């Protein structure tokens, strides 16, 4: 129990609470262990439990009708999962999948509602968490006007493959910074470019297999 309380007081949801409040909340929290690759929240499902990652990491993603996956965020220890569905009672917005063995602390919707009434500080904390989430997602939505991000990435690859920067290494984070996007979008863009046979990913190499295709993608109107 002491471990749980020590952990909870460091989370965004429960920061600033008294030891007595934390003890009381810890009693309502249950532990859930999930294996690597296990999907513990289904997109569109009705899981009405808020989870906080205690250890390990999980990815939040959406899957398109064509089966393409877009990672929206990574939840690390202290991060919450499934907040929106628990608060508004709607379906789960995203799926959550463990990237390693994960230990989750869960709070049912009914217990969370009791906590919000009894400890108004928690409500303030929740507002801040959700506001930050909205800020991040708005930025991601901007980046996910997908076509011109792919064009910017294609341009970067041409620069590094055959242009002035040839021979220099770059990470996906470098590409994201240069393209004005986030790493998750770069990862997906590289997959799309590979599907279009413009590039091939070979371990640590990005091989430009069709330079003309990359140039066409760069020229495409956004």
């Amino acid at each position: 129990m002491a471990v749980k309380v020590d952990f909870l007081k460091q989370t965004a949801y429960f920061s600033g609470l008294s030891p007595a409040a934390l003890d009381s909340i810890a009693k309502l929290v249950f532990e859930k262990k999930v294996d690597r690759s296990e999907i513990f929240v289904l997109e569109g499902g009705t899981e009405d439990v808020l989870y906080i990652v205690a250890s390990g990491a999980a990815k939040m993603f959406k899957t398109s009708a064509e089966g393409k996956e877009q990672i929206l965020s990574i939840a690390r220890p202290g991060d919450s999962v499934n907040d929106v569905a628990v608060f508004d009672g709607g379906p789960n917005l995203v799926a959550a999948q463990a990237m390693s063995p994960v230990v989750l602390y869960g709070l049912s919707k009914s217990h969370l509602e009791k906590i919000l009434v009894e400890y108004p500080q928690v409500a303030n904390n929740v507002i801040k968490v959700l506001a930050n989430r909205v800020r991040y997602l708005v930025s991601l939505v901007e980046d996910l006007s997908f076509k011109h991000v792919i064009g910017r990435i294609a341009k970067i690859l041409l620069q590094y493959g055959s242009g002035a920067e040839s021979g220099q290494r770059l990470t996906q984070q470098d590409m994201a910074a240069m393209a004005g996007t986030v790493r998750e979008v770069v990862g997906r863009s590289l997959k799309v470019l590979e599907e279009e046979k413009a590039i091939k990913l070979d371990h640590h190499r990005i091989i430009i297999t069709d330079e003309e295709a990359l140039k066409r993608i760069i020229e495409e109107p956004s």
Partner: protein
Amino acid sequence: MIELPVIDPEKCNGCGLCVEVCQHDVLVFIGDIVTVNKVEECDWCTTCELICAEGALTCPFEVVLG
């Protein structure tokens, strides 16, 4: 020469998430430091880079003309 993920020990906070998410057990802790162990098993999935909140672990790409 086999390419390895690049680890910056000054940025590494020892959280161990990279070791946990690696599906091929490529990364291990030696003391407090994450190091690459089974080099030949690394398939450059870059999940370790994705998971590192500190930017301590990177998987740089070389872009080449085919």
